[in-house]
């Protein structure tokens, strides 16, 4: 019953999202024909234009277009990309792997490194190591991602000439693993650097909060080793919130990946959605927005579920809230 309710909420959210994106995208001035026909669009006669618009279904009122899109989408047909002139899924399939590689690997790196750094800082609280890491982290987190990318390109690609500045593989090379890895280093560094400290600092503060709890004092007075208190008790209490933050972090890291992809002209979903938004490639834009929306909504639900499952206190608190709300 509860799962059903969630599924329903998920579907309704997607429906509203699709309507909103559809509407805003068509409000934007710009010529979708230009992305379909390229330069030829400018030379068309009015009759040809009207014919072309009718062919693509762009001459109808927005709500009619939306309903038609919805009906087709429910049959699994999301239309063709105006720019690439093939099925949108085919366009996306070609790029999704690259983004998953960058974002997924980045995600794993960010959260494992952040956990390590956070614990390290909490352990050495207010000692030089903690202070240095905190300062460095704050500085790093303040550097805008695109500027960090520029700096790295300037240093490693322009001056030292050791790493490639753009793309996902060299043109002659058919994408060997070593070549892919070399192209990943700079974008990956930026993705990780842009988010690492935010989460490391979060886990550090969460642990420091935990360390100030009374049960730690009790455990100390019973003679438990500091390390086992920190890892067995404090960390254990901090992990549920960390897990739920991991789930919520997916959209942030995804958004960061989009910017990094654009700066490095990395052929992924980020550059694709940026192009589709700028050049009115409606069908492609819709699918990309829905995809990322679905991922985000799923992640939010996951976060909530994780929280409720691991930490019964949240369920209890919600029950109390519900009762007191009714009162």
């Amino acid at each position, binding site marked *: 019953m509860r799962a059903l309710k969630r599924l329903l909420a998920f579907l309704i*959210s997607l429906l*509203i*999202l699709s309507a*909103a*994106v559809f509407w*805003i*995208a068509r*409000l*934007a*001035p*710009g010529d979708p024909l230009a992305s379909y026909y390229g330069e030829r669009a400018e030379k068309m006669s009015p009759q040809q234009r009207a014919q072309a618009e009718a062919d693509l279904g762009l001459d109808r009122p927005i709500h009619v277009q939306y309903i038609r899109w919805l009906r087709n989408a429910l049959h699994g047909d999301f239309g063709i990309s105006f720019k690439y002139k093939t099925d949108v899924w085919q366009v996306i399939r070609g790029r999704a792997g690259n983004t998953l590689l960058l974002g997924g690997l980045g995600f794993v790196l960010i959260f494992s490194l952040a956990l390590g750094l956070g614990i390290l800082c909490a352990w050495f*609280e207010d000692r030089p190591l903690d202070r240095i890491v905190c300062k460095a982290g*704050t*500085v790093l987190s*303040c*550097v*805008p*991602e*695109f*500027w960090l990318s*520029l*700096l790295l*390109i*300037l240093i490693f*690609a*322009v*001056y030292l000439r050791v790493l490639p*500045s753009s793309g996902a593989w060299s043109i002659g090379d058919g994408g060997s693993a070593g070549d892919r890895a070399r192209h990943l280093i700079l974008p990956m560094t930026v993705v990780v650097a842009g988010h690492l400290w935010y989460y490391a600092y979060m886990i550090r503060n969460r642990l*420091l909060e935990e*360390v*100030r*709890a*009374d049960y*730690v*004092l009790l455990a*100390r007075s019973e003679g438990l080793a*500091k390390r086992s*208190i*920190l890892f067995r008790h404090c960390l254990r209490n901090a992990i549920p919130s960390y897990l739920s933050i991991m789930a919520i972090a997916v*959209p942030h890291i*995804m*958004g960061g990946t*989009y*910017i990094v992809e*654009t700066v490095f002209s990395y052929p992924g979903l980020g550059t694709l*959605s*940026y192009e589709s*938004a*700028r050049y009115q490639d409606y069908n492609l*834009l819709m699918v*990309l*927005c829905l995809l*990322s*929306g679905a991922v*985000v*909504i799923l992640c*939010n639900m996951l976060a909530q579920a994780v929280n409720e499952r691991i930490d019964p206190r949240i369920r209890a608190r919600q029950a109390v*809230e519900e009762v*007191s*709300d009714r009162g």
Partner: protein
Amino acid sequence: MDERFALAGIRPTAPAPAAPKPKWYKGKPLLAIGFLAAMALGCLFCQVIMTKDPAYMDLANYARRPDREFLFGTDTLGRDIFSMIWSGGRVSLAIGFLATAISTSIAVAVGAASGLAPRWLDRLLMRLTDILLSIPSLLTVVLLQAVLGQAGVMSLSLVIGVTSWQSIAKLVRTEVRQLRRSEYVIAARCMGGGFFHLLRRHLAPNFLSSIMFMVVMNVRAAIVAESTLSFMGVGLPLEIISWGSMLSLADNALTSGAWWIILIPGAFLAATLLAITELGSWLRKSANKKQSNL
């Protein structure tokens, strides 16, 4: 000291010397505040500081290294970077504050409404907020900016403000949901206090301190958003000088290896962001302090 206490073995002791009063500036982020003040003043009175007309394209002197005449060099269009920093800072900072003012107003309105509303409305509002959060903000910004047409300072602030209020709204809602059960709020409601009266007199004074940190961080996020968008070519055009639009020339600069075009505006940008962050985390820290038990 009373005789009875003396009999019980308690002797009067001299009052402990008062701990030296901490200096007023102790623990405050002086460096950050000083830097921000200097930037703000410099940008406000940029007419005094600037050595050249920032918009003038001196094509004979394009992409010059920093020297005595052009303190920070010139960009690939021959504009003086030193002067551009100050007049561009005006735009960047203005967008940061404007966008934050817009997003905070929306956030407080939505959050407080949602917190005070009956359960179903609250759920609906929060669900909508979640949906809005789920579109990558880069995409919404690109789309909205396309709707509004050519970007200017006002329209870009509006777009950034409209797309960045959700997390503050959630925090306001949580705070208001806790506050609404307090006696004074109930009393005010019983006496017929309207929404805005409640918000102004009872709710806002209580949640302001807890959203302050996020508001400051929102300024930072807005400045980052402006520079990122302008850099990508969807924000401010080249003619409207801001730290972001200065960096949109980076592609040319990279091929010619002109490091100053990239390094200098970015360094000012990053330093300002750092100062804002320091200020924000001091605001947060000054709210709660407790000793470790470990």
